[in-house]
């Protein structure tokens, strides 16, 4: 007998459930976490390096690096002073909640080792402007890094990514004099998708604009910790 069964279940619900478990685990350990997303070459690892350099004396920072292959990024993060875990996706174009759950178990959450607890976890997603937007990881804030040489049409081409993030870092602004990039056109596209999005103009190479980005992280971290103490 043919029979119609109503399902009405979100296709991402399995991942979303696991993401919620990751969030609970991070909250229990008091670790504030960021998910960095960008196209390949936008400067995710460079931004992490600059951030580590500036904050490593103030905070204990862990990094989870997602890539299809190699441990190049985790090595760079470790060299810059982070506790780094590399996750190789073996061809998958994004990190998902399962990968983060496995990576979290390699980190000392909840003070099981002596020494400082982790204050901040930075997840470096696989370089891609499509897929990472659909897979929640359980992190507290999603950050998109755009870069000047990518071109100013990216918000229009990747609306899913631009509409879902909590902050935007526009990197490589030192290249503005050499590249055709209509900042107004770019920012108008962003404004439609994500009105009032917190935006930082930076150059990881020259260090320009980094102060505002670092201050934002510290403020968000403080608010997070204050919220936990309530």
């Amino acid at each position: 007998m043919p029979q119609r069964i109503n399902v009405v279940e979100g296709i991402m619900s399995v991942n979303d459930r696991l993401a919620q478990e990751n969030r609970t685990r991070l909250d229990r350990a008091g670790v504030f976490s960021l998910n960095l997303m960008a196209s390949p070459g936008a400067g995710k690892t460079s931004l992490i390096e600059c951030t580590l350099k500036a904050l490593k004396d103030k905070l204990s920072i862990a990094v989870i690096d997602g890539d299809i292959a190699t441990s190049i990024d985790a090595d760079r993060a470790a060299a810059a002073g982070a506790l780094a875990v590399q996750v190789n996706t073996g061809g998958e174009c994004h990190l998902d909640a399962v990968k983060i759950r496995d990576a979290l178990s390699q980190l000392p959450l909840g003070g099981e080792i002596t020494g400082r607890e982790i204050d901040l976890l930075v997840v470096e997603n696989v370089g891609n402007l499509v897929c990472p937007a659909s897979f929640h990881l359980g992190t507290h804030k999603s950050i998109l890094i755009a870069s000047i040489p990518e071109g100013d049409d990216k918000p229009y081409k990747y609306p899913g990514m631009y509409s879902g993030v909590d902050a935007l870092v526009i990197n490589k602004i030192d290249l503005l004099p050499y590249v055709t990039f209509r900042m107004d056109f770019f920012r108008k596209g962003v404004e439609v998708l994500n009105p009032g999005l917190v935006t930082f103009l930076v150059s990881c190479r020259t260090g320009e604009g980094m102060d505002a980005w670092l201050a934002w992280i510290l403020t968000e971290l403080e608010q997070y910790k204050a919220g936990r103490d309530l």
Partner: protein
Amino acid sequence: MHELSVTESILEISLRHAAPAKAKRITDLYLVIGQLSSIIDDSVQFYWDILAKDTVAEGARLHFKRIPAELLCKTCDHHYSPDSENLLCPHCKGTDVSVIAGKEFFLESIEVET
């Protein structure tokens, strides 16, 4: 590009819902996909044929209901369907808009043989 993981999810959800009905076979799946959710039907079908093999869902037909994007301008209340190059409100050129439709991504129902 992430159709493999998405298709795995679709299979997991449909098998889970078919089991309590003691379905011998899942014949049809009805999926609802918004224009803004960037999923390619053909790729889902391609992975489906591989993943569903040797399950009760083998050979099931996939039906995709596409929901076009609809935006509402919060400045002038204009309701419109955007084209990909221009998301601004075509009426007042405003940028403060909300998404009314187009983000859907769920399995609505399945048809089974019991």
